[in-house]
């Protein structure tokens, strides 16, 4: 995404390497100079080709085949079925609810992560040294928790019987709880049985775990902004919001661009946390495309063909979203 300028800049820097090479006789390694980078790249290229590119082509092929138990065991070759896998999943309402869940979740989670993360980043920049170190260490813990453990923790916090959240909601005065939610007693409220509440917990869980990265990155960016700019804005009587919009945001735009793309990629295919919160692919209405693809392909009876078709849809969406976004950025200004 950013590498048009990368290369230009890198290119400027390294117009020299030929010189040291030229006044030195060919070395004992016996490789001609031009071939060295290619030799260095061979292992990496092989890995990328075999483990990423080849399977990507394969998934495109499998999406048009029927691959069930017999085919997996190799007793029968896979048979071509044309667009059948796609027409079947498009006829299935689970696919559409999974698509909706994927998109709505990604939009909400990415937005919230960026907003909360940026706010905390700006806050960190304003705090004193001791306080900001304390907060950074704290959010580092949230960031470090493995995705599976994240799911487990929030499942526990939202547990129906012994969860802290239901306990906290019961603390609310009854009139307030009635006014806000139309009920006063939260004991035994199951949060993880229905799609909407599973996703609410999932959003909280994912934002909790991913805002620290945004905050620390924004903080790193803010450290590079000259203090005089803020001084000048203050003298001119600029408020906090205006300062952010007119100074901080434009200067940190490249950082935000990267953070947005990364968040989109991460949140579009959230798997571990959702898998844990649901307790495996259990609640069909709460599937997203990742879980749906997994369930089709690996839950008996295995339907690898339609699993591949769903995975392909997810990949295409992901590529379109990032391509559109990256193009927009490149159009706006060369990064």
């Amino acid at each position, binding site marked *: 995404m950013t590498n048009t300028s990368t290369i230009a800049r890198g290119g400027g820097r390294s117009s020299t390497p030929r010189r040291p090479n030229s006044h030195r006789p060919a070395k004992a390694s016996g490789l001609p100079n031009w071939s060295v980078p290619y030799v260095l790249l061979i292992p990496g290229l092989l890995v990328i080709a075999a483990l990423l590119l080849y399977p990507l082509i394969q998934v495109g092929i499998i999406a048009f085949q029927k691959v069930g138990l017999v085919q997996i065991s190799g007793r029968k070759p896979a048979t071509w079925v044309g667009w059948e896998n796609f027409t079947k999943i498009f006829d299935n309402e689970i696919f559409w609810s999974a698509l909706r869940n994927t998109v709505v979740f990604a939009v909400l989670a990415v937005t919230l992560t960026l907003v909360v993360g940026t706010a905390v980043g700006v806050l960190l920049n304003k705090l004193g040294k001791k306080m900001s170190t304390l907060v950074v260490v704290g959010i*580092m813990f949230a960031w470090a928790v493995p995705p599976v453990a994240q799911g487990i923790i929030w499942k526990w916090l939202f547990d129906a019987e012994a969860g802290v959240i239901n306990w906290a909601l019961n603390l609310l005065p009854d009139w307030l709880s009635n006014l806000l939610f139309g009920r006063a007693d939260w004991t035994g409220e199951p949060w993880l049985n229905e799609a909407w509440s599973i996703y609410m917990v999932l959003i909280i869980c994912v934002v909790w775990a991913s805002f620290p990265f945004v905050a*620390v990155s924004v903080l790193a960016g803010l450290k590079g902004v000259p203090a005089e700019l803020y001084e000048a804005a203050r003298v001119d009587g600029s408020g906090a919001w205006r300062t952010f919009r007119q100074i901080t945001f434009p200067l940190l735009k490249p950082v935000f661009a990267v953070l947005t793309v990364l968040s989109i990629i991460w949140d579009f295919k959230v798997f571990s946390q959702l898998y844990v919160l649901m307790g495996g692919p259990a609640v069909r209405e709460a599937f997203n495309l990742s879980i749906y693809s997994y369930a089709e392909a690996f839950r008996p009876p295995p339907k690898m063909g339609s699993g591949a078709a769903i995975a392909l849809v997810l990949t295409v969406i992901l590529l379109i979203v990032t391509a559109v976004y990256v193009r927009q950025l490149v159009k706006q200004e060369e990064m």
Partner: protein
Amino acid sequence: MSPLARKRLGKVALNTTGLLVFLFAIFPVYWMASTAFKANDQIFTTEFIPFPTHFTFEHLDRVLSEGVAGHSIWLYMRNSAIVALGTVLIGAVFSLLAATAVARFRFKGRNSFLILLLIVQMIPAEALLIPLFLSVKRLGLYDQLLGLIVVNVGLTLPFGIWMLRTFVAAVPKSLEEAAWIDGAGRFTTFWKVLFPLVAPGLVATSIFSFITAWNELIFALVLMSDSSGYTMPVALQYFFGQKGTDWGAIMASSTMMTIPVVVFFLLVQRRMVSGLVAGAVKG
């Protein structure tokens, strides 16, 4: 209100907000760890018990001796460690070679390679899951940790190269040129000059790959069927299959899984941010 009082009030508000952020971030982690050491009567209660006053090691003891799905949790920790370390060792060599090529040489196809690196990072692992499962099965690597290592190398390598190349590029070229002129061979220059200077970056990149492989769930779920080959993320799913979730044991196990990652995170925190963001922005 006097300006001084207002300033002081603003400071108090800032610090209070900071404290709230700290609590929001740390409380769930604390809650996991504290539940792991609470006796069952303090876990299964509608009361809020902030500290384990009936402190106990029984859950930790149980997952270590009785274990989960028929094996001690140590076995799953070991499996996870083997997979993550194997991934890191292979990945470190491959990414160092490729990163050196990209950061130190201009050659035809360099730009294409960089673009390729970016594109393959966008491929969702879910898209690779089905074909890689079939390939691993065909190659006889199903149910073997080696299969999982190979897959994880593929998943972590593009980012590893991408991150490491900034570290290689940051080493001043003049050092190598000096060694070069003194008559050092290509390999000596690499090993004696470049490698020691890139080593910290290599450690940071490796830790990143380690964490990715350590946390990986979906491939481990699909490629391992025998419980003796489970990694931690898969083993943890097992608790939810049973009736009446054993929260004490779950929290003891997930705390064990979390500790190495937290330690690594605190070690490389600063480099990680610069690698992720600056690496992508500045090139």
